[in-house]
């Protein structure tokens, strides 16, 4: 066996405290019962244990340092670790297979353990049908508001899929029992439908919020106005405050889509974009010439671009 100090990873001058800390760290890492199935830790744990039992006692440490005892002294009797009993099926009272605890994992497998698992013994093996996957493309608004969508399955059957409001891109919906049929009276598999959402002409979506860039006229922006704004649930009236600017963002509370985790509705954010008249207007040009002389301002400087 190698040097006891290097087994613990400490120097020969380590204090009792340093020895203890090194030993605790290694014990936590190497204890066989905390590493079921790892055969290599047991030998290392034994070595570490033995090294510490020699070095933690000042008397035996002194003798070891003086070369009076070698590193293999004080062999401890071998012992059984808990893991060897636990893995051999003993100690079932501590961790017997609890069908209820695993219900979430096994509920759709063989109808759950403990219920009828034995019933199939000696007959055709019960084998749940395989799962199948599909993809479906849906409109932006169908995903936002929810919809029923008819899709054709591999076997030619059609099935109506309920797309819940707030469905996200690449979300997978499970159609229970719509996969391949099972064997021996077992359940059919499930069909998984991955949803892909087509982008919208003017709405975009971030989580449960909807974003929209809304063009407004110069006079609406300067003077303020009450205007009609499209939302995912139809047009609503919105007040544009006087002096609104390009980039000003207004919030329409509760006009987003449903957050599937919390069940709450998001908001719609309306980002204004001031748009000048399409054709140059002589009167506006004249007004700007005279107004601009006395009201110079530099938005680029304010934006830090200069």
């Amino acid at each position, binding site marked *: 066996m190698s040097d006891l100090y290097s087994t613990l990873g400490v120097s020969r001058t380590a204090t009792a405290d340093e020895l203890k800390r090194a*030993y*605790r760290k290694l*014990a*936590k890492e190497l*204890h066989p*019962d*905390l590493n*079921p*199935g790892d055969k290599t830790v047991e030998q290392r744990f034994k070595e570490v244990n033995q090294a510490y*039992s020699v070095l933690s006692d000042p008397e035996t440490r002194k003798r070891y340092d003086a070369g009076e005892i070698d590193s293999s002294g004080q062999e*401890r*009797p071998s*012992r*059984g*670790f*808990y*893991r*060897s*009993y*636990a*893995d051999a*099926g*003993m*100690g079932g*009272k*501590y*961790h*017997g*297979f*609890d069908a209820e*605890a*695993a219900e979430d994992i096994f509920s759709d497998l063989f109808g759950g353990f403990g219920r009828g698992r034995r019933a199939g013994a000696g007959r055709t*093996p019960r*084998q749940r049908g395989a799962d199948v996957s599909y993809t479906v493309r849906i409109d932006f608004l169908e995903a936002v508001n929810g919809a029923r969508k008819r899709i054709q399955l591999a076997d030619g059957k059609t099935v109506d899929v309920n797309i819940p409001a707030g469905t996200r891109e690449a979300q997978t919906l499970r159609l229970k029992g719509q996969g391949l049929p099972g064997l021996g009276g077992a359940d059919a598999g499930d069909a998984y439908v991955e949803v892909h959402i087509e982008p919208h002409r003017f709405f975009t979506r971030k989580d449960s919020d909807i974003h929209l860039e809304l063009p407004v006229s110069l006079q609406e922006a300067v003077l303020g106005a009450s205007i009609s704004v499209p939302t995912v649930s139809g047009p609503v009236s919105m007040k544009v405050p006087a002096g609104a600017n390009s980039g000003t963002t207004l919030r329409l509370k509760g006009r987003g889509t449903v957050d599937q985790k919390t069940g709450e509705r998001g908001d719609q954010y309306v980002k204004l974009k001031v748009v000048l008249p399409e054709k140059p207007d002589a009167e506006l040009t004249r007004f700007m010439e005279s107004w601009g002389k006395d009201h110079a301002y530099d938005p680029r400087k304010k934006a830090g671009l200069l």
Partner: protein
Amino acid sequence: MALLSLVEVVTAIRDEGIEIQQTEVEGFVQQDWVIPLHEEGAYFFDEADKARIELIIELRRDMAINDEAVPVILNLLDQLYGLRRTLGEIRDAVRELPPDWRSAFEKRLSNSLGE
């Protein structure tokens, strides 16, 4: 395998070089960390109980796990060993499957486990 009385289990553990008091074992039993057979007012420990006592001793003494944390660790370990048993059962069941089902199962598993 013979069951050990409280005194016998304490002696057997000491013989393996692990220092322990009888009152400690009684404390473990009272807190249901160890569940020996209880008959006619006496406790009887099997090998698994004994190994579990040694584990608890080492958790507390060698790893400085305090008494508040011991049941947390035991609970997680019990779940871990329970899962290992379940996995063992599943492995045995898979071995009994027809070869093509078995290979489909193994393929599916190695895909999802990224091997």
